[in-house]
């Protein structure tokens, strides 16, 4: 086996880590400028978005090269920059960003896939009148997602996480005049919000226990040993430690964002958005944010594990992931919308990632995340190309024979499909095998291993079914299909290359990716590949994949059934088919339970509002109204009456006195003289007496 060279930790921030905030900031600023542009400035908006994304990609590559250089020199780089946002009493609220192998790998993946999708969108959205708005939202999304990636504080993580949720809402509802898109956007927003409430609770709990939300802070961060020991010593309910309970709460948030059962219902509906959005947000990046969150707080999830053991949160993550993987794959078998199949496939693959994290650690889950991002973005963009070429048709039963009409799309889509199925040598094979290997050696139970193998069989089967419907047989749609322009096919080809080659970074013989993430060295060892255990597993998984593809070809092959005809499997087993086609009635179940409860509760609240609170308010109001009537009566008849009377008196007496003032000077003088005579007479008379 490999000898472990101890890597020295590198904690002081280099200039490149100090500047890392530019990576999310530039796309957000570009979004801000694009928001101010008028509709006709299409070129400028697209240039801004693509330019900012290119800058972020370039910067991410520098950061990645920096981390890589450190790694080759035996340095485990984890450079953090923390700033105090504000202070309340004695507790500080701090934000910060971190540059370590995990964030560097994610940065490069998000910016690279994002840039390709931006370029692809310039053509896909060409005829949309809200082109500038689209690029504004896309840039904002990219900035928020990059913020999630570099966050070194759970608070900053959460803020960007919510921004990502907001842009997801805006982009799913981009064609808001379609009622289905508007309601899908609402559904996505509310369903993820359910998870986010738990996430927020976990965050508050973590802050109250450790007093910090920073992940790493030179020993004082919440993911470092001091804080974890403190959390392990606290006991929550049901035999969980505080660390376990917080881990579960955070996982609930991750499950909402990453579409894990039972919060997966929003993701298939999110396909109402434009296809580039589905590729970027609902396949490659945003839905992976939940997986990334678990990878980021992995020390917390793992806290308290004994050697070789596991913890309650990780067991929950594994079971939920494995169940979601099989559950969504089953539903994907019976769907007829090209994007919906991919959506359920995404849910299923996210389940694989979660299970990989739960059983194999950060590197296993993250490796599948990275390879999946490339081939799922490829598949979605291929599906977009198909939809574009088939005049906005999304029903796979109305396609067929596109192999010759759209050769480049067929080739790249085929590579994506094989990679997703886990065909040997392609990237999906290595990353999925990593998960299966971890499942095989899991100490708790063997069931997840069988579930995941079954899921792999289903994956190969439904992808073959889809490809057979879309590309094989003969054309069954309206009009003629045409190949998409180069702007759309070149990104497909680039992604196809990575879908093939990326797996070589994480083969068991040379687990470079795992070593890079975990900070140890690695070297090339052929003999691991032919060790009996691993070889057996690889042969098993190859056999499973080939069986799935073979079954798919056998059943659907070149038949090109009529669009109206029932599916082959439907004839074979109508009842289970209908269940799967109706998505196992999860939506209906929610409609009958949660939504019915809320409707009932809303009615009760409405009744209370109208009758009880409304009645109380109305009675208080009527008391005041009566009092006001009394006041008006008193005012009109008592106060006003006496005042009016006084005014009348003054007015009439004034009129009387005004008669005296004639304006003739001599009249006044006569009165004066007469008065003096009278006065004199009185004086004389009184002195006489």
């Amino acid at each position: 086996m490999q000898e472990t060279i101890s890597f020295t930790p590198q904690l002081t921030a280099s200039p490149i880590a100090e500047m890392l905030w530019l990576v999310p900031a530039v796309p957000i600023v570009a979004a801000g400028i694009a928001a101010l542009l008028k509709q006709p400035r299409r070129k400028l908006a697209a240039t801004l978005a693509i330019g900012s994304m290119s800058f972020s990609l370039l910067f991410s590559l520098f950061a990645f090269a920096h981390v890589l250089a450190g790694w080759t020199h035996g340095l485990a780089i984890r450079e953090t920059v923390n700033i105090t946002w504000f202070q309340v009493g004695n507790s500080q609220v701090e934000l910060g960003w971190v540059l370590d192998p995990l964030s560097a790998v994610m940065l490069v993946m998000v910016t690279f896939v994002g840039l390709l999708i931006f370029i692809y969108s310039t053509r896909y959205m060409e005829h949309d009148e809200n082109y500038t708005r689209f690029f504004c939202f896309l840039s904002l999304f990219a900035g928020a997602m990059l913020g999630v990636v570099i966050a070194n504080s759970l608070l900053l993580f959460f803020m960007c996480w919510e921004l990502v949720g907001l842009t997801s809402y805006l982009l799913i509802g981009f064609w808001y005049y379609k009622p289905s898109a508007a309601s899908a956007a609402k559904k996505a927003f509310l369903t993820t919000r359910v998870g986010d409430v738990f996430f927020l609770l976990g965050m508050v709990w973590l802050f109250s226990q450790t007093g910090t939300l920073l992940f790493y802070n030179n020993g004082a961060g919440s993911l470092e040993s001091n804080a974890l020991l403190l959390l392990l010593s606290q006991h929550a309910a049901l035999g969980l430690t505080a660390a376990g309970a917080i881990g579960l709460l955070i996982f609930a948030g991750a499950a909402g964002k990453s579409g894990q059962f039972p919060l997966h219902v929003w993701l298939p509906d999110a396909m109402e958005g434009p296809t580039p959005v589905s590729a970027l947000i609902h396949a490659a990046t945003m839905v992976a944010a939940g997986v990334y969150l678990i990878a980021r707080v992995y020390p917390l999830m793992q806290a308290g594990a004994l050697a070789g053991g596991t913890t309650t949160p990780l067991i929950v993550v594994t079971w939920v992931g494995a169940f979601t993987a099989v559950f969504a794959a089953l539903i994907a078998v019976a769907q007829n919308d090209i994007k919906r199949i991919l959506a359920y496939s995404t849910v299923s693959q996210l389940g694989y990632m979660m299970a990989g994290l739960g059983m194999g650690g950060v590197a296993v889950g993250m490796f599948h995340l990275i390879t999946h991002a490339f081939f799922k973005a490829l598949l979605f963009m291929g599906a977009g190309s198909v939809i574009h070429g088939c005049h906005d048709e999304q029903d796979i039963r109305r396609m067929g024979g596109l192999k010759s009409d759209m050769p480049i799309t067929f080739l790249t889509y085929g590579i994506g499909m094989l990679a997703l199925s886990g065909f040997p040598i392609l990237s999906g094979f290595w990353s999925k095998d990593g998960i299966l290997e971890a499942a095989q050696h899991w100490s708790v139970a063997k069931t997840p291993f069988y579930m995941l193998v079954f899921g792999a069989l289903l994956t190969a089967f439904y992808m073959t079914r889809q490809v057979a419907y879309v590309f094989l047989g003969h054309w069954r749609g309206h009009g003629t299909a045409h190949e998409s322009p180069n702007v759309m096919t070149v990104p497909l080809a680039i992604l196809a290359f990575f879908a093939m080659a990326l797996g070589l970074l994480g083969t068991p013989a040379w687990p470079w990716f795992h070593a890079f993430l975990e900070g140890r060295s690695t070297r090339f060892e052929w003999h691991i590949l032919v060790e009996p255990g691993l070889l057996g597993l690889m042969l098993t998984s190859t056999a499973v994949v080939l069986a799935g593809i073979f079954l798919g070809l056998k059943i659907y092959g070149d038949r090109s059934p009529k669009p109206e005809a029932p599916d082959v499997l439907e004839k074979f087993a109508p009842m289970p088919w209908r269940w799967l086609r109706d998505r196992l009635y999860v939506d209906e179940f929610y409609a009958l339970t949660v939504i019915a409860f809320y409707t009932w509760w809303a009615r009760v609240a409405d009744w209370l509002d109208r009758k009880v609170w409304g009645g109380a308010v109305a009675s208080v109001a009527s008391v005041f109204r009566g009092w006001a009537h009394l006041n008006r009566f008193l005012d009109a008849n008592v106060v006003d009456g006496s005042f009016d009377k006084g005014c009348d008196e003054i007015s009439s007496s004034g009129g009387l006195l005004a008669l005296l003032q004639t304006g003739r000077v001599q009249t006044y003088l006569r009165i004066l003289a007469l008065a003096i005579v009278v006065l004199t007479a009185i004086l004389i008379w009184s002195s006489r007496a």
Partner: protein
Amino acid sequence: MTPLASYLLVAALLFSIGLAGALTRRNAILVLIGIELMLNAANLNLIAFWRFGPHPEALTGMMFAIFSIAVAAAEAAVGLGLVIQIHRHAKTTDLDAMNRMKG
């Protein structure tokens, strides 16, 4: 009849003539002349009370009368000025026509 009484009688007569003129005349200038007559009756009284009073050697009464005459002259000038202005404005000096000074 003492000499004082006769002076007072003349003064009272003069005052009455002035008052009658001021009350009965319609011409503003004649009314002013009546007022001047009443003023001069008062001046005559001042001189008479001083001349036949207890201290005729002090010139108090004469001083008073001279002041009064000066004030009367100023008052007559103001009054005549007003009358001229009113005449220019209303083309009349008839007092009965000037009844606009009321509220």
